[in-house]
């Protein structure tokens, strides 16, 4: 997909999201105020309408503008897959941290990301995954007395 096409679809998504925020999120998830002064919805409306209008401009320019899309977009299925994997690992690491505490979660995060980057040597993974979280834990929990998840 060329960059122009990516911009077109990005514009479409922005318009849909902008309309969703303007027509649903602001009316249902922003208080209406007390009837005097400016409503809390006033500025969110300005922003969401501006974003929707600018998204529409983006679509318009890409439909009627000159085709300049020589550069190919980097957003491929492979890239999306890797991104989902990394985000999933981060979320999983936080979940482990939430349930079992900072040290197991931190060790999982470092080890999982090293493996995701293609590291296979256990002699590198184990010392890093144990040593770095332990160092941070000692620094914050013990030395600086800043509580980390238990």
């Amino acid at each position, binding site marked *: 997909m060329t*960059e122009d096409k990516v*911009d077109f679809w*990005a514009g479409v998504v*922005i318009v849909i999201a902008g309309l969703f*925020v303007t027509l649903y*999120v602001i009316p249902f*998830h*922003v*208080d*209406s*105020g007390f009837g005097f*002064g*400016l409503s*809390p919805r*006033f*500025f*969110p409306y300005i*922003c*969401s309408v501006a*974003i929707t209008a*600018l*998204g529409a*401009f*983006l679509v318009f*320019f890409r439909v009627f503008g000159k085709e300049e899309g020589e550069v190919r*977009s*980097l*957003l491929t299925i492979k*890239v999306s897959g*890797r*991104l989902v994997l*990394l*985000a999933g690992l*981060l*979320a999983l*690491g*936080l979940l482990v*941290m*939430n349930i079992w505490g*900072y040290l197991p979660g*931190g060790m999982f*995060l*470092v*080890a999982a*990301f*090293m493996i*995701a*980057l*293609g*590291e296979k040597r256990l002699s*590198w993974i184990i010392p*890093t*995954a144990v040593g*770095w*979280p332990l160092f*941070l834990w000692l620094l*914050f929990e013990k030395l600086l007395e*800043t509580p*980390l*998840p238990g």
Partner: protein
Amino acid sequence: MLNDILLGLSDALTLTNFLYIAAGVLIGQVFAAAPGVGALTAVTIAVPFTFYLNPVTAIGFLVGINKGGTLGGAVSSILMNTPGSPEATATAFDGYPMAKKGQALKALRTAHFSSVTGDAISDMVLFLVAAPLSILALQMGPAEMAAVVLVALVVVGGLVGNSIVKGLIAAFLGVLFSLVGTDPETAGGRFTFGIPELMDGLSISAVGIGVLALGEIFRQMVFHGDEANGSAQAAELGSREANRFRWRDYRSVAPTIFRSSAIGTIIGAIPGLGSTAAAFLGYSSAKRAAQDPESFGKGDIRGVAATEAANSAVVGANFIPLLSLGIPGNVAAALILGAFIIHGISPGPQLFAEQSRLVYALFGAMMIGTFCNLFIGLFSMRLFSKLIQLPLVLVLPCVVLLCVTGIIVASNLFGAWLLVGFALMGFLMRILNFSFVTFIIGFVLGPMFELNIRQTILLSDGNIGFLLTRPIACGFILMALYIAWRLGKRRKLGAPQLSM
């Protein structure tokens, strides 16, 4: 006035401040020297760790990281032809050929002394210009301030990235995210979805670390995952004689340094431009001014001096709009603005009138930072030449955990969960060429923009004709429209852009 200056400087000159600033400079140099990490990541991660410090120490520490970062980026550019940060890209043009000729340490020393000189000059300009500018800014009311913020958003949105429309979308998106929490007037909830943790709004730490640091790390991992495993090979430092940097070497590049420092200072004072643009402009002006321009790109010492002086001069100059108007010049200044707000300080024209002692303490901290950069750089350059050979497969996972730890220390695990969403957002913004810099600046300026627009509407009683009685505000609004039109037209003509 003189009393405030002396008291402010004495507040800055404490051992604690000195140690924190020195640590900041060292951290900035280390992070910037490691390709793919960057000093901006270090500033972002460091913001939450400054919560428990006093304001001068905290801001001094962050400024130290920023100053150290401008120097550290040159190390990997010169030794590996791989810029540690975007502003050091042009340093590689002549720095790497010098390294290949066995003059790596001389190139590093040139970068070091040029960087410190550029930084010191821009600090001096800041000290001289910021206070008078803030006196002028004091004459401005909410309508003028709202118009200034609008100009800043348009300039940043137009100059950074490949389309002004996409830049403005990013800016308004940043402003929209800054509205999460309670309404400042009625305390009504906005976008809180019944989650108590969102009542205080989104913290700059969660947004900054997610979009800036983790977004970039995800980009590195997704696109360079396969290359991350290898250890990089740096150029050798070469013989002692070939690497000696003498006083006459400094004198020979002094005109280049001063020209580039002036360019960097002017660029830094304009919101949205920033050190990468300054570095390239400094380099090209040095090449144009040279009698033998063909020597540039083949290991000319002036090429290194021009780039490093220009990109470092941006650091101090960025504080001119930040301190006098409350407008951050670039993303590092936006993060430092976030730190100001966290510590209960509102940068802007009132700051000089109400807390001048603090401002002069900050100036003192900046001078300490420049001194530390000079002193630490004398020893750290050789050390970093070894450090930059650490493979990314070790560095990136450790930085991810540092980011998570930073946000837990600053807020709680809920903040860490927000990181996942903002990291994805930061990654997508990079891939789709939406400026994350503009997004962050929009996020930081959002509350100020809203407050001034609200006050203007209340003062005018909703009458738009009120603006006609405020010529300065009208001038700024017209300027914003003109800039938007000019930048939009320039992009159509295919003018070069700054990617960020």
